[in-house]
C-alpha cells in the first residue's frame, strides 16, 4: 500500500512565512471585516488590505464598475480613510485574525509619500509586510511608477532603505516588458513581486454614446485577463529570483494552479471574492487535494514546474 501524503502548503515570501499560498488581492477584500460573515478568515494564507494613502481619498466619480465579457472594469480611485484612520480603525480587526497582514500603500502625487507611509507602518508589529501599489491605473496619471523601470527601482530602493519588513512591489501589466520592471524591483531589494494589477480598459454604452465608467476608463479584472496574467508570471519567473505572487482572474483551484505552475510561489484571489466570497478557502483545500492526488509533498514540487507540450 502506498503511504498517504500529508501535503505541506507553507511558503516563504522574503522572511514572511505563510501557512498556505492563498491570499486575497488588494482592493477586492476591503479590510477583511466585510467578509467575516461569509468565511473563516483565519484560514487564509494572508490578507492584503485595500490600498491606503497618506490622506483620505473620496474615490472616483461614479459609476465605478461595469461588467464586461467574463470580467469587469473598475475605477474606484483608491477610496480609503487615510493611513491614520486605517491604523486606528481598520488594523485592530486585522490584527485579531492572527494571520499575516500585508498593507498595500500608494502615493497620490509625490513618490515621497511612500516614505511617510512606511515610517508610520514600520513600528507596527501586526503589519507583516508592505505592498507597494505602484500600478493603480485609476489615478488619472500619464505614467505609472511601475511603467518605468528606473522609477520602480528608485521607489523600491528608497523604501527598502527604511524598512526591514517584507516588501512586495505590485506591478502593472500595461507595459512592454514585464520582466524588465520585475528585474528593477528585484535589484532594488524587493522581497517579492505581485502581478498583475488590472489591465487598462474601456467599455462604451452605445445607446448613450458614453463610457460605462464615470472616469472614462478603468482597470479590467476577472477570468478575461487570466491568460495575460499567466503569461506575464511565466515571463518574469524566467528572469527573476525573488518569489512571485500571481493573480489575475483566479476563480478556482485550476486557475490558481496555472499561476503556480507558471512560476508563482503564492496566489491572490481578487474579483472572484465578489462572486463567491469563499473562493480562497475552496482553493486552499483544492490545492491540498491536488498535491495529495499527485503525490506532491510541498509547493516546491509545483512552483515553476512547467514542461513543454508533448
Amino acid at each position, binding site marked *: 500500500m502506498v503511504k498517504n501524503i500529508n501535503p505541506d502548503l507553507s511558503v516563504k515570501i522574503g522572511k514572511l512565512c505563510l501557512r498556505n499560498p492563498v491570499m486575497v488581492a488588494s482592493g477586492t477584500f476591503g479590510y477583511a471585516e466585510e467578509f467575516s460573515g461569509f468565511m473563516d478568515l483565519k484560514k487564509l494564507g494572508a490578507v492584503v488590505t485595500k490600498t491606503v494613502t497618506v490622506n483620505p481619498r473620496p474615490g472616483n466619480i461614479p459609476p465605478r464598475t461595469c461588467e464586461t465579457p467574463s470580467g469587469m472594469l*473598475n475605477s474606484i480611485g483608491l477610496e480609503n480613510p487615510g493611513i491614520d484612520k486605517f491604523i486606528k480603525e481598520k488594523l485592530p480587526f486585522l490584527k485579531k485574525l492572527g494571520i499575516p497582514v500585508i498593507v498595500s500603500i500608494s502615493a497620490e502625487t509625490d513618490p515621497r509619500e511612500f516614505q511617510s507611509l512606511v515610517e508610520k507602518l514600520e513600528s507596527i508589529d501586526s503589519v507583516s509586510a508592505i505592498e507597494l501599489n505602484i500600478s493603480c491605473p485609476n489615478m488619472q496619471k500619464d505614467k505609472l511608477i511601475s511603467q518605468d523601470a528606473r522609477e520602480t527601482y528608485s521607489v523600491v530602493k528608497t523604501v527598502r532603505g527604511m524598512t526591514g519588513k517584507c516588501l512586495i512591489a505590485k506591478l502593472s501589466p500595461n507595459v512592454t516588458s514585464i520582466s524588465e520592471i520585475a528585474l528593477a524591483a528585484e535589484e532594488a531589494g524587493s522581497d517579492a513581486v505581485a502581478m498583475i494589477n488590472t489591465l487598462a480598459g474601456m467599455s462604451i454604452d452605445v445607446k448613450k454614446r458614453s463610457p460605462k465608467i464615470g472616469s472614462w476608463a478603468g482597470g479590467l479584472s476577472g477570468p478575461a485577463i487570466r491568460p495575460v496574467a499567466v503569461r506575464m508570471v511565466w515571463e518574469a519567473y524566467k528572469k527573476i529570483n525573488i518569489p512571485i505572487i500571481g493573480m489575475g482572474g483566479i476563480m478556482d483551484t485550476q486557475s490558481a494552479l496555472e499561476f503556480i505552475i507558471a512560476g508563482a510561489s503564492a496566489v491572490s484571489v481578487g474579483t472572484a471574492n465578489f462572486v463567491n466570497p469563499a473562493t480562497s478557502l475552496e482553493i486552499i483545500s483544492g490545492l491540498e487535494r491536488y498535491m495529495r492526488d499527485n503525490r506532491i509533498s510541498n509547493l516546491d514540487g509545483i512552483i515553476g514546474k512547467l514542461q513543454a507540450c508533448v
Partner: protein
Amino acid sequence: MAAAQLKVKIISHKKVNGAFRLLEFDSALVAKNASPGQFLEIKVCDNGFPLLRRPISIHGVKGSKVKVIYEVVGEGTRILSGRKPGDFLDVIGPLGNGFGYTVKRPGASRDILVAGGLGVAPLVFLAEKMKMNKNLVLIGARNKGQILCRSEFKDLGFKVFVATDDGSAGFNGKVTELLKEILSDASGERPGNIYACGPQPMLKAVAGISGEEGIPCQLSLERHMACGFGACLGCAVSTKSGYKRVCKEGPVFAAGELTW
C-alpha cells in the same frame, strides 16, 4: 442582521407578465432576517459569463418562503429565468439597509408609496410590514401591460393610483406628475412620509417634490454592484456627507441626504 451565503431551493418560478418573473425560494434564515428594502445577490451562472451576481430586492416573505420579482433584461436574468422549481440557487443576503418605518397604529397619518416599474417589489414588502391601511400607492409604468402588483396593494387595503407613460391606463403621464397633483389637492390628507423606489429620474423628481413640500422621504436606489456587501466600493452614490455605498449604507437613503 448578518448576511449569509446560502444554497436555497426554488419553490416556484413563474411569469408575471411580459418580461417580469416571480421567483420563490425556501430559506428560513433569509425570511427571518429580511426587512423591506433589503436585497439579495443572486448567482446566475457558474462559468464566469456573466461574471457577477445580480442584486435583486426582496419582494416579500411568508413563513420560510422568500419572494423576488425581476425583469428579464440581459444575459444574467435570461439565465436565471431558466431555473426550475427544485433547482438550487446560490444567494447572499439579506443585504443593505432597508426602509426605516414604524408599524402603524390606528389613526396614524397617511403615507404615500411611489413605485416606478419594478420599483413596486420592495414597496409591497414594506406595505405588508407596516400594516398600513387607508394609504396610497402610486404605480408608474410605461404602459398598461407593465403595471405590477396592483392587486397585492389592493388586498393590503391600499388605494391604488396608476400612471402610464402612454396613457393606456390611469393617469396619462409620469407617476411624479401624478404625485404632484395628489399633493396639491387641498382636500387631501397630508402624508406623513413618502417612500419611493424606481428609476433614477423618477427618484430625483420625487426627492424634489418631497423637498418642496417638506415631507420626509426615503428612496431606494439601484446601482451597478460588483460585490453587494461593501467590499469593492463600486456602487458609490454622492451624498451631503461624501460618497456612500448603495449596497451597505443604502440602498435606502433619506431623500434630503442625496446630492443629484
